[in-house]
């Protein structure tokens, strides 16, 4: 680090650019949340000011909570996300362990086969997936979504986890074998606890696209009982095009849980990207 890279104008310039971009990134989010607490007159009269006692109004929120079945949609999203996450992590870790621990014929081929799904999006298979779900009677069930998301999440999970499992010391596993532990016990009791941080990273990566997906809920599970938050919000927003209070409140309700989760997990996520992605 020479003095040149630390010079004052350069630092100020860097901060100016970064601050500007931060403002651009956060502005729409702040704007939506801010205006969701205002009356209609406040929303249109002064969109850029925070709510004042005069314009403060919760009418949007009461409409949304009264009209939409958001609690139910929320539960559906939660079931789908947690369910898929569980299977992605369990199956993904098992497969990653098999690929990284044992040498057997077809190992590389199997790895490549599973890696195919990282680049080829599962969405392209939709036509036949829908036929499959219709044939097996799974249309409009959350099971269909969990199955699809499990298949979608597995390739990346296997890829990342097997990188990390290669780093688990062989001596430890062999010590376990000498003590007479079965391969299953070695996996569940020795290896899984050691790769838990990387499993958390995979969990965050897997979770965001599942929670936010619109395509598969729209196609596989559009019924009232199985709607996810994303689909529910989409339809709700479509119905209330002219009720700006309700739209802004619904958007804020959709943003907040994700934002809170993100603030909690952002270090994990960012560490995950910056450590695993460069390989």
């Amino acid at each position, binding site marked *: *680090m020479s003095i*040149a890279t*630390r010079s004052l104008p350069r*630092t100020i310039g*860097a*901060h100016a650019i*970064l601050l500007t*971009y*931060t403002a651009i*990134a*956060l502005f*729409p989010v702040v704007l939506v949340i801010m205006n969701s607490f205002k009356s209609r007159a406040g929303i249109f009269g002064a*969109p850029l000011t925070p709510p004042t006692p005069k314009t403060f109004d919760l009418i949007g929120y009461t409409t949304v909570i009264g009209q939409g079945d958001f609690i139910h949609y929320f539960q559906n999203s939660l079931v789908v996300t947690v369910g898929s996450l569980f*299977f992605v992590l*369990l*199956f*993904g870790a*098992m*497969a990653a362990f098999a690929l990284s621990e*044992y040498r057997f014929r077809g190992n590389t081929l199997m790895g490549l086969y599973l890696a*195919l*799904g990282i*680049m*080829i999006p*599962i969405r*392209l*298979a*939709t*036509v*036949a997936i829908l*036929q*499959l779900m219709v044939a097996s009677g799974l249309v409009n069930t959350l099971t269909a979504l969990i*199955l*699809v998301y*499990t*298949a*979608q999440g*597995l390739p990346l999970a296997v890829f990342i986890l097997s990188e990390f499992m290669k780093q688990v010391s*062989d001596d430890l596993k*062999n010590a376990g074998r000498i003590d007479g532990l079965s*391969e*299953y016990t070695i996996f569940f009791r020795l290896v899984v606890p050691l790769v838990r941080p990387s499993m958390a990273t995979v969990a965050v990566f897997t979770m965001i696209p599942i929670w*936010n*997906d*619109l395509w598969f809920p729209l196609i596989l599970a559009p019924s009232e009982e199985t709607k996810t938050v*994303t689909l529910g*919000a*989409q339809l709700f*927003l479509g119905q209330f095009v002219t009720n*700006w209070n309700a*739209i802004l409140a619904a*958007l804020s309700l*959709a*943003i907040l849980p994700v934002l809170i989760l*993100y603030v909690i997990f952002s270090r994990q*996520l960012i560490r995950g*990207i*910056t450590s695993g*992605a*460069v390989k």
Partner: protein
Amino acid sequence: MAAQTRPKRPFRWHIAVFLAPAVLVYTAIMILPLAGTLQLSLFRNVDQSQIFVGLDNFRTLFGDPNWSVNFWNALRNNVWFFIIHMLVQNPVGVLLAALLSSPKLRFSAFYRTAIFVPTILSFVIVGFAWKLILSPLWGVAPHLLDFVGLKSLFTPWLGKEQYALTALSLVSVWQFIGIPMMLIYAALLSIPEEVIEAAECDGITGLSQFWKIKLPLILPSIGIISILTFVGNFNAFDLIYTAQGALAGPNYSTDILGTFLYRAFFGFQLQVGDPNMGATIATIMFLIILGGVCVYLFLIQTRLRRYQF
């Protein structure tokens, strides 16, 4: 390990047990349907039965005016969508990452977290929020332009055929800029201190250091970002659907392959859904993405020098 070099050994069931669940789910829900979709594109439904028609569906898609006008339009729009991403998202992402990675920058964790926020939001939120902001009814966008004295530039961008696609591409760039930023940031952090110090001893600092030393070292990451952007863009659907609906208005000006696939497969308004044509479009998308991935793997990745430290 000694056990593995022994010539005859019993079948190791645990390997199969470990692999089976993942391979079964992945094969049944992803690979077989993908193959099934590719296969469906070669058939057509005539009198309730599927008849093999060879490449006829593709001929219809490329040549029949009922389909080809929309198809070429969607493909053209999709290419433009991708070009905007490459021209705006990646350079800005590299710039932000370069600034963030400068040593001893204060608040860099805050910037990093904040700039990544749009990436975690769902398309529904992003699409609608921007629709509201750009809406002439609400007046936020003209209001903001007024601050910088450019109010005359405002038009309802999402409602005009010539601007709508570019506007939506920029919204998508806004949403996903966090990904190139993070990946490049990670690559920049992994450049060893000695390389930078050696450059500084030779008097290469500042901008020329970035162009001559750092940029060549992060080229592999830029390659990865480009292919991720390519796959993501040619598979995009959600943003257009939430902001402009399945008809991708105004007058199909924002139609991309994803929305075209959706309409062809499910039908929309007067058009009846056609799984075979849907499968045909999905096959084209598959070939485009596969082509991109192959170009990346065989042409770009092998030529980029990887530096091992």
